[in-house]
């Protein structure tokens, strides 16, 4: 799966100071509606899975069946794009090392998540390396929720990736250049990347890189259909 890294949208992180997010940290992928946030987030997840990490996908909106079918679609795109040979083994990695926790009907609570993660570790020895959180409403969610996630990241030594919805008409940025809706949270977030469609294609741009200055060329162009990085 060496090839994957060449086309993974995560390539953007190799342009960051620590070559990644790192355990105990929170990272965000921002995009407007319909740009492909979830697809991109799942690419981040697959990258982890193919590195034999264990991953918990936390869905605050979609039922597990839908989440699995997203993974399947993206996985089969990858199989095609990469001419994948060890498809069967990778499929197994995906099934065995991914756990979906869904919280439907606004039933999400950090307390429940902590409880569920403990269950995974204690009851079935599923020890996660990363968390992917899809569908959290950054505009509505209290700061406490993010503080809760930060604690979870530290307590379970996982890295946590969120997707956040931004809006075309809200262009506010804070003094450090971080746009709404992450502008009031950026002290809790270690990495922020933005997914943006432009005339020239879809771009992933690094907006925040731990404590370092972001280099101006820190962006990667993606194929608008597969969300794989173009070289």
């Amino acid at each position, binding site marked *: 799966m060496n090839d994957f890294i060449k086309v993974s949208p995560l390539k953007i992180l190799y342009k960051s100071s620590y070559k990644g997010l790192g355990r105990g940290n929170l990272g965000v992928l921002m995009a407007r509606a319909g740009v492909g946030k979830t697809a991109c987030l799942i690419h981040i997840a697959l990258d982890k899975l193919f590195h034999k990490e264990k991953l918990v996908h936390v869905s605050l909106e979609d039922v597990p069946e839908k*989440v699995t079918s997203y993974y399947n679609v993206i996985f089969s795109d990858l199989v095609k794009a990469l001419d994948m040979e060890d498809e069967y083994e990778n499929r197994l990695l995906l099934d065995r090392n991914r756990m*979906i*926790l869904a919280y*439907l009907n606004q039933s999400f609570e950090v307390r429940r998540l902590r409880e*569920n993660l*403990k269950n995974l570790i204690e009851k*079935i020895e599923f020890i996660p390396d990363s968390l992917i959180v899809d569908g959290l409403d950054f505009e509505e969610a209290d700061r406490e929720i993010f503080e809760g996630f930060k604690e979870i990241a530290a307590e379970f030594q996982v890295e946590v990736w969120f997707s956040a919805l931004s809006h075309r008409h809200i262009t506010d940025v804070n003094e450090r250049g971080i746009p709404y809706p992450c502008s009031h949270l950026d002290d809790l977030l270690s990495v922020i990347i933005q997914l943006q469609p432009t005339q020239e294609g879809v771009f992933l741009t690094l907006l925040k890189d731990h404590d370092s200055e972001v280099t101006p060329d820190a962006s990667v162009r993606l194929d608008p259909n597969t969300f794989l990085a173009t070289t």
Partner: protein
Amino acid sequence: MFDKIQNLRNIGISAHIDSGKTTLTERILYYTKKIFAVHEVKGKDGVGATMDSMELEKERGITISSAATYCIWKGHNINIIDTPGHVDFTIEVERSLRVLDGSILVLCAVGGVQSQSITVDRQMNRYRVPRIAFINKCDRSGADPKKVLEQLRQRLNHNAVLMQIPIGLEGDFIGVVDLVAMKAVYFEGPYGEDIKVGEVPSHLIDEASARREELLDVVSMFSDELTEAILEGEVSEELIHEAVRRGTLQRELTPVFVGSAYKNIGVQPVLDAVNRYLPSPMDVENIALDMNNDEKEVILSSDPDDLLVALAFKPEVTPYGQLTYLRIYQGSIKKGDDIINTRNRKKVKVGRLVRMHADEMEEISGTGAGDIVALFGVDCFSGDTFTNSQLSYTMTSMFVPEPVISLSISPKDNKSDTNMAKAINRFVREDPTFRSHVDQESGETIISGMGELHLDIYVERMRREFNAEVDTGMPQVAYREAVSRRAEFDYTHKKQTGGAGQYGRVAGYMEPSEDGVYEFINEIKRGLIPTEYLPSVDKGFQSCLQKGQLIGFPVLGMKVTVNDGKAHSVDSSEMAFTHTAIGAFKQAYKKSKPIILEPIMKVSIECPSEFQGNVMSSVNQRRGMIISAAEDGVFTTVDAEVPLSEMFGYATTLRSLTQGKAEFTMEFSKYSKVPESVAEELKKRLLERSKGG
């Protein structure tokens, strides 16, 4: 004959057990004047609801066999196909879904969308069945139709929209507000047969208006006229109905009704909705395969004047002979017609044609495309297609899963012996997932099916309906063997025992096949093995697949390539080459590192969230792989894949783990390799068993 195909409906009622499907059906039959008294399920009068025709079902309070019942509501002819609510009988559900055009999904206002509803809904998706939903039991304490609406959206992913709101709830539930007409509807008289329409109660006006807004908002997606009318402020009821119908037919919308079948509230509007929103046979595209044209797909016409194509879906043995339900897709059928069974090209004469009402039969002379009838005296299997002599179509084959579990049975006495044979003969016809064979070594009769409960029910039916007392063995998982790598063979079969000898030589290799299907590849050059012997070689290999040499279970598909060989002008024969192939198979099989495969079930467990950890560890202890856990307030649904062999007795374990508050369903998913650590133990056990008896 019915008047117009547009006014015909073939519908199912599907539900989680105990949601009130039987009660709702009973009421429907009452209002459509097909039965003349209302009985309760498991009622005091011991009569039981009409649809549960089998004694056993009545006692267990569940509906196992599907029956088609005919009724008329406001000028529409409705065939109700009763779909079983129990998931161990998936084939029954699948089979009835095949002949439905639409369905009423019944949900309990208290229990909501439970794991069985999810399984049933998944099956309806598979057959692309449009549906309307009825939230029943709004009179029970704890009823929360809005929660159920949300679950429909979230758990089943339906674009669900309320067509009504309840007036009162629980003990105070007295009627519904119709959001299309913006009227209150009450159901009076001893059985709710007198419908009284009134103004929306003042305390509900705000809520009703808001819900109506929501309704218009959602359904205007399906109609530009309606969108326009909304802008102009001139919305007619007709426009709304039209838009709801469109959305429903496209399966992009689920209109939701509320009521209480038991308290006779809200049933008639559901019937109106069946007429208004569910498809007529004309609205559904049906496909058959043309056997004379390479199984090419053909679209059937739903024209009664066209050539006949009909599907048999429910053979039943009655005191008057075999009764077969037929769904007519194209053309017409009448008494005295000659029809042909596509499977065996046998010609049959149509004798008595009847329409089944819940408690009586009506003899009819014929009917046409779209309708469902039953006919007597035709010998056939479930799933057979009938046509007239000009066509050779078969309806796309139904998905029939392989049995995953088997049980040995033996009669307790002579009388039971004959009766058991009769019973098996009948069950095999009714249910393609129920199989039976005699084990050649032990001489025992083995029955197999889709789960423990599936077989239990049949064993009990043997006792009750056929007076066959039988002893049963331990349930046995249907393992499979498969080759795991390529192995060569080069085998010579030579016998010279006076008279004509036997000679043959076959060489080549066997290897795993990707899709699990057996394939025979001939790469013989220069006629080294004469072509006429090749089918015998193929046959020899296939005969070895019945019983593998590893644990004695069937061998799942493999690819066999034959590329060399030799024949003798005198001593070679078909039989000689069959024997050669058998020898070659044995030679290569051991070298191919055969593995054991076991059936893996997709298991879905629903429990109060506080038990989530315990439930997960119980799955984990059973070699299960947990896929997801979904919380929804107080409940969690855990989905997992678990080997069937580990699921015996799980119901009991789960009950004690969760104080009886959890339930689970399972469905066959796939065959997977048994892990090495388990395989050794299993081999030992199976070998001992076969030595022991």
